[in-house]
């Protein structure tokens, strides 16, 4: 067992060394394909993240009837928090609302001084909701006692949901497409490498080598080459994404990019796994035809 493992490793390294040019082509093809795949993957993950951040900001506003007692407000929040789709409830007193408005107006806060004594704003409750249930929550809230008016901006939100869904589908579709293309290109490259050695395989068969005896070194070779390619791709992604985070942090800090970790670690593991699987399957499937001697 140890002896045959040693032989397989030895033959695999000899094979790569003897077919240096072909090995280099394989490694660089794998590296480029996996790099593109990783970039698209990162893009898709960040689009998903952005969609999530945007959706988390969806909320409705309940204007309350004037002169509710604190106990009534409490029981209203209690009831609301049991409605499916409600994430939390935040009570905003009319004084607080006026102060917030003043902040929003910034330089023009002076405008408010005119109305400071007779605050026109009602008490309200802000309710962040699951965007999918926005309409149901808003309709339910309208029925509650003490609620005067519900602001839900449902038309805007519905359009927003359409956009985030499209972005998600686009990201996932691109990633899947690229994954498929990667599989095809890498397995074709490996097939070429095996094809260039079909005579060798044939001779091995003719002197009595079993399929397994021939396949072992070829599979290890395929795995090693893809693994090296995957490592190159991972290193490039690691460097590139770290740089991007720094650059975006300086100039576009509001972009909700995913942090470097554990994203890059996971991505590296994924690339390595994909390399191993592609290398092993690619070489053994390509070899099968030439073993039929």
């Amino acid at each position, binding site marked *: 067992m140890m*002896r*045959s493992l040693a*032989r397989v490793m030895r033959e695999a390294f000899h094979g790569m060394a*003897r077919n240096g040019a072909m090995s280099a082509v394989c490694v660089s093809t794998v590296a480029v394909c996996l790099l593109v795949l990783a970039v698209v993957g990162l893009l898709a993950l960040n689009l998903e993240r952005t969609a999530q951040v945007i959706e988390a900001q969806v909320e409705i506003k309940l204007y309350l009837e004037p002169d509710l007692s604190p106990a009534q407000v409490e029981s209203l929040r209690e009831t609301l928090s049991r409605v499916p789709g409600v994430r939390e409830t935040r009570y905003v007193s009319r004084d607080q609302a006026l102060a917030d408005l003043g902040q929003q107006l910034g330089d023009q806060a002076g405008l408010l001084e005119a109305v400071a004594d007779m605050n026109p704003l009602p008490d309200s409750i802000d309710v962040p909701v699951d965007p999918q249930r926005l309409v149901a929550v808003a309709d339910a809230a309208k029925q509650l006692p003490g609620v005067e008016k519900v602001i839900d901006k449902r038309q805007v939100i519905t359009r927003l949901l359409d956009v985030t869904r499209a972005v998600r589908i686009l990201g996932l579709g691109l990633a899947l497409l690229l994954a498929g293309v990667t599989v095809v290109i890498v397995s074709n490259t490996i097939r070429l490498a095996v094809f260039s050695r079909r005579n*060798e395989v*044939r*001779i*091995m*068969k*003719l*002197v*009595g*080598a*079993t*399929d*397994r*005896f021939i396949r072992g070194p070829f599979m290890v070779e395929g795995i090693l080459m893809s693994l090296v390619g995957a490592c190159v791709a991972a290193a490039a992604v690691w460097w590139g994404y770290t740089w991007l985070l720094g650059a975006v942090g300086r100039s576009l800090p509001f972009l909700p990019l995913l942090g470097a970790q554990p994203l890059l670690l996971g991505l590296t593991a994924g690339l390595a796994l994909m390399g191993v699987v592609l290398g092993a399957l690619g070489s053994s499937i390509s070899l099968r035809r030439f073993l*039929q*001697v």
Partner: protein
Amino acid sequence: MIQLYHVSMIYPNQVQALADVTLKVGRGEFVFLVGPSGAGKSTFVRLVHGEERPTQGHVIVDGRNVGRMRRSELPLLRRHVGVVFQDFKLLPDRSVFDNVAFALLVTGSSRRDVRRRVPALLELVGLRDKAAARPNELSGGEAQRVSLARALVNTPAVVLADEPTGNLDPDTSWDIVQLLLKVNQAGTTVIMATHAKNIVDKLHRRVIAIDGGRVVRDEARGMYGEALDSAAAEAAAALEEQAGRSVRPFSGLTWPGRGRSDWRGGSGGDLRRGSGGGAGAGGGRR
């Protein structure tokens, strides 16, 4: 040793290479297979070591039906049927030593076996000093001797030589044939497909002539062409005597390396175990 029963071989492109061939080659025989190009000589060789399966009939090698063997059993057959190819079929990126060693390694032999056995065979074919050379550094005759050493390294019961002298000049050809005779005298069955009229006529061994896929002649002490009259036969006898002398020096041959084992009794058991089910040495059954 080798029996063909009503064997026909039609290739996928409809070429009929063999038509209803029935013949038998006994253990330890030396047989020339002659006939024009395309007569079916190479097909015969391919059938015997399982490179092709017959369209009809049975190819029996040492009691086993080659046409019915599973793919996983063929490697075991091939270790007991050494083949010498016209184009040598050496692995171009390995040394002479490694080429011979490869055939030994596929049987799972240890590196100690390799170190003992490969030099002994290179000695036998006279290439001890070329062990480190690459195939492209060898002359045709040398390459063919490497091919022969590789065919012999597993002490096969049969050696098939498919036009082994086809690419060689007459003198070199004669060297190869003498090596084959040497191997035959050590007890190995040798079947040599050839066009080399002078060699066949000189040695006066059994000749099976194939033409158009049929056996047209099978003579125990034959010539390349038919012996037309007694004069030719006499000439042949004289030549044979001459040839016999040239062969004699090798009669005291001892087999190099490990003792000759009958592959039916010894390692041949592997072949049968492989077919009997369970974990045969061949493994990898689908």
